[in-house]
C-alpha cells in the first residue's frame, strides 16, 4: 500500500511522502528564501506543524519577513502555534553545545505533540551555518541517524548547508546522509541523488515489479479487507476468478460479492478468526455475470505494533470445478446407494414370495411319499426323490439369497470376539465335522480378539471350513489349519487345507454368487459370496491362494506340483480398530456438521 504524498511546495520536487529527508546547498540568502518560503507555505496550507530553525545568513526576523510576503496571515499561524521560527541556539545548541540524542528526541516529541494537536505531521528545516569544524563529525552522525529513522515518522525535513562552507568531502558526507540534494546549476535548481540511493530505489522498483508480476500470474487472489469488511486491496488474479477488475472491488464491502446463502456462515467464520481459529474456509461468491462460483479462502489477522487489528489479509482460490466434481460424486454415490437398497429390497421380496410355493411343494411331496410310496414303484420313488431334493435345493438357494440381501441391512452389534473360543464353538455347527472326515484340524494359537459382528464372522469361518472339508482330496488325509498374522492395521486370518485346490483362473470367480466349480459337490454355491460380502462389510478383503502356501513340506505330503491338487488357503482381513462401513456424509464443505 502506497504512503500518502504531501505537497512539498517546491516545483522541482513536487509531492513526496512522509519520511522525506533532503538537503539544500545554498550560496546566498535568496537561495534559502527561494526554497524554504514556498516549502513552509505549503506546510501551513496543508495542516502541518512547521519548525524553521534559522541561522546566518537568514535569521529569525528575516525569515519571518520573507514568509510574510507570501503568507499574509503569518501572525495568525504563529499565534495559533502552527509554526515556530527559532534561532539555532534555541534548538540545536540549547544546552550550550550540540547534543545529538537530545535533538533527535526533541524532534520526535514535537512530531508526537503535533499529531496529538490534530496536525497531519511535522515539516521542518534547519540551517547548519553555525556548525563549527569540531561539530562536523557529530552532526554528520546525527544526520545519518535522522536519515535512518525519519521513515517511521510523519516528518519532512530540509537541511540547508552553505556551499561556501563545504568542501568536496563535506558535500559527499551531506549527500550520503540525505535522500537527495537540491543545488543550483546554471541558475536553475536541480535534484541530485546519491548513487546508493538510486540503486536502492532501482532495486525496490524491480522487486515491486517482480511482486506485481507474480501476483498477476498466480491463479489465487491476494486480498486485504479492513475491519468494516471493505476491500482495501485485491490482486489482479481476482479477475480470473470473478471476472471483476480489482478496481471494481476495491472500496466496496466484501459481503456484497458473497452468495446470500453463505453470508451468515462467513460472518460466523470471521468471528472464529478473531478468536484465533485459523483455517481455510469454503463458500460461494457471485461473479460479474451473476454466476455462482465456489471459493476457498485462507485469512489471517494483521495487527499494528500496538496490537490493534488493522486488516484481515488472505488468499482466495477458485474451487468451483473441484466443488462441482465433489457434489456430482456425492450425488452419484447417493444414487448408487439408493439403487443398491432397491435391489436388496427386491431380492428380499422375491425370496419371500418364492417360499410360499416351496412350502406347498414340500408339503405335498411329503404327503405323496407318506401315503402313496407303496404304489409308486422304483421309478416313481426316484422321481419323488428328485422332486424333494430339488425342492430342498431351492430352499437353500432362497435362504442364501435372503442372507445375501440382508448383509448390508442388518447391522449386527460389533463386539470383541475371542476367535479361539469362537472356533471351538463352531466345530459342533459344521456340516461335516472335520474329525468325521478323517481330518486333522489345527488352530494356530494365539488368535487375536477382533471387533466384529459375532454371528457373521462365525458364518465366515463355518463357510470356509465347510469348504475345506467338502473339497478334500481322496488321495490324502485332510489337514485344515486356521491361523492369523498382523499386517499393519489389519489382522490377516487364513483357513488352509490340502484338498483339491483350484486353478488360478478361477481365483476371482469363485467369490461370485452361485459360482460352482464342481457341480457334483453339493452346495448352493453361495458360501464364498457370503464370506466376501461379510468381510467387505467389515472393511476387510478376502482372497484365495492355490496352491496353498501355508503348509510346510511335511504337512503337505502328497501334494502335487500342479495347480489343482495342491490345496487352497483362503485369506481374509479384518481391521484391528472397529470400523463401520463408510456411509455417505452430508455435503458440507465448510466442515459445519
Amino acid at each position, binding site marked *: 500500500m502506497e504512503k500518502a504524498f504531501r505537497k512539498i511546495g517546491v516545483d522541482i520536487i513536487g509531492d513526496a511522502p512522509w519520511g522525506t529527508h533532503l538537503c539544500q546547498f545554498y550560496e546566498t540568502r535568496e537561495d534559502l528564501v527561494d526554497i524554504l518560503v514556498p516549502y513552509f507555505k505549503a506546510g501551513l496550507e496543508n495542516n502541518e506543524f512547521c519548525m524553521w530553525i534559522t541561522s546566518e545568513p537568514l535569521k529569525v526576523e528575516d525569515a519571518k519577513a520573507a514568509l510574510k510576503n507570501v503568507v499574509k496571515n503569518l501572525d495568525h499561524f504563529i499565534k495559533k502555534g502552527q509554526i515556530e521560527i527559532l534561532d539555532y541556539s534555541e534548538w540545536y545548541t540549547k544546552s550550550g553545545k550540540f547534543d545529538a540524542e537530545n535533538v533527535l528526541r526533541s524532534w520526535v516529541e514535537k512530531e508526537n505533540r503535533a499529531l496529538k494537536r490534530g496536525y497531519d505531521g511535522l515539516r521542518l528545516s534547519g540551517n547548519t551555518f553555525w556548525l563549527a569544524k569540531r561539530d562536523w563529525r557529530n552532526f554528520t552522525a546525527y544526520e545519518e541517524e535522522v536519515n535512518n529513522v525519519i521513515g517511521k515518522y510523519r516528518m519532512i525535513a530540509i537541511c540547508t548547508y552553505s556551499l561556501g562552507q563545504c568542501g568536496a568531502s563535506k558535500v559527499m558526507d551531506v549527500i550520503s546522509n540525505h535522500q537527495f540534494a537540491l543545488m543550483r546549476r546554471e541558475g536553475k535548481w536541480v535534484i541530485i541523488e546519491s548513487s546508493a540511493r538510486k540503486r536502492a530505489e532501482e532495486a525496490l522498483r524491480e522487486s515491486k515489479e517482480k511482486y506485481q508480476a507474480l501476483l498477476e500470474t498466480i491463479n489465487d487472489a491476494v486480498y486485504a479487507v479492513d475491519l468494516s469488511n471493505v476491500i482495501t486491496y485485491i490482486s489482479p488474479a481476482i479477475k480470473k476468478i470473478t471476472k471483476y477488475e480489482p478496481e471494481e472491488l476495491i472500496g466496496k464491502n466484501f459481503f456484497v460479492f458473497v452468495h446470500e446463502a453463505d453470508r451468515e456462515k462467513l460472518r460466523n467464520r470471521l468471528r472464529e478468526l478473531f478468536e484465533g481459529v485459523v483455517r481455510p474456509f469454503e463458500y460461494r461468491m457471485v461473479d460479474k455475470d451473476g454466476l455462482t462460483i465456489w471459493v476457498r479462502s485462507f485469512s489471517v489477522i494483521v495487527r499494528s505494533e500496538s496490537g490493534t487489528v488493522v486488516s484481515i489479509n488472505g488468499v482466495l482460490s477458485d474451487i468451483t470445478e473441484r466443488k462441482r466434481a465433489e457434489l456430482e460424486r456425492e450425488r452419484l454415490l447417493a444414487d448408487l446407494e439408493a439403487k443398491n437398497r432397491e435391489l436388496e429390497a427386491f431380492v428380499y421380496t422375491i425370496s*419371500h414370495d418364492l*417360499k*410360499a*410355493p416351496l*412350502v*406347498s411343494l*414340500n*408339503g*405335498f411331496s411329503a*404327503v405323496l411319499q407318506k401315503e402313496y410310496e407303496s404304489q409308486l414303484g422304483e421309478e416313481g420313488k426316484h422321481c419323488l426323490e428328485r422332486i424333494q431334493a430339488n425342492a430342498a435345493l431351492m430352499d437353500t438357494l432362497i435362504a442364501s439369497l435372503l442372507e445375501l440381501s440382508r448383509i448390508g441391512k442388518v447391522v449386527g452389534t460389533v463386539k470383541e470376539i475371542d476367535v479361539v473360543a469362537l472356533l471351538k464353538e463352531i466345530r459342533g455347527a459344521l456340516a461335516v465335522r472335520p474329525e468325521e472326515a478323517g481330518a486333522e484340524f489345527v488352530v494356530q494359537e494365539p488368535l487375536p480378539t477382533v471387533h466384529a459382528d459375532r454371528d457373521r464372522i462365525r458364518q465366515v469361518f463355518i463357510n470356509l471350513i465347510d469348504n475345506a472339508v467338502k473339497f478334500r482330496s481322496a488321495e490324502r488325509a485332510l489337514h485344515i489349519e486356521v491361523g492369523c498374522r498382523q499386517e499393519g492395521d489389519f489382522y490377516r486370518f487364513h483357513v488352509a487345507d490340502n484338498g483339491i485346490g483350484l486353478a488360478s483362473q478361477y481365483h476371482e470367480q469363485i467369490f461370485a454368487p452361485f459360482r460352482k466349480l464342481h457341480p457334483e459337490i453339493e452346495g448352493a454355491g453361495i458360501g464364498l459370496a457370503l464370506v466376501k460380502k461379510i468381510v467387505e462389510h467389515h472393511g476387510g478383503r478376502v482372497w484365495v491362494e492355490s496352491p496353498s502356501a501355508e503348509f510346510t513340506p511335511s504337512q503337505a505330503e502328497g501334494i502335487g506340483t500342479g495347480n489343482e491338487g495342491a490345496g487352497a488357503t483362503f485369506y481374509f482381513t479384518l481391521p484391528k480398530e472397529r470400523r463401520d462401513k463408510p456411509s455417505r456424509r452430508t455435503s458440507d464443505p465448510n466442515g459445519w456438521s
Partner: protein
Amino acid sequence: MSPKSIDILLVEDNADHAELIVKALRDNNVLNEVHAVISGEEAMDFLCQRGAYVDAAQPGLILLDIKLPGMDGIEFLKLIKADPKFKPIPIVVLTTSGSEQEIAESYRCGANSYIVKPVDFKHFAKVIKELKLYWMVVNSLPK
C-alpha cells in the same frame, strides 16, 4: 366329541397351505372342527357372526397367516385384540419367513404364539401345549 372341544378358525389365503395344515391336523387325530376362511374380512364376518356366517360358532383358537390380501394379518390381529369380546381367543400366527421382525411385531400386536410354515405336527402340538389348549384339542382314536 366332548363338550369341551373347541372350534378352530384358520385364516389362510393360500389353498395349498390350508389343505396341508388341515391334513397335518387330521393325520394326527385332531378332530376339532376347522373353519377355513381366506381373508381377514371374512374372518371378521365369521367372528361377528354376520353375512354368510350368521350361525357360526365362536372359535376357541385362531390360526392366522400373517400375509393376507386386503386386510393385512397384523391389522386383523390388532383389531381382534382391541375388541374385549374377542381378545381372550388365543391366536397363533403362521409365518413363512420366520423373520425376527415379523415375529416381534406379531407378539407386540398381541399374538399368543407363532409357527413357521410348513406346519408340522410336532410344532403344532408344542404350541397347543404352551397355550394350555391341550385338553381342548381332541384326539379320539389312538394312532
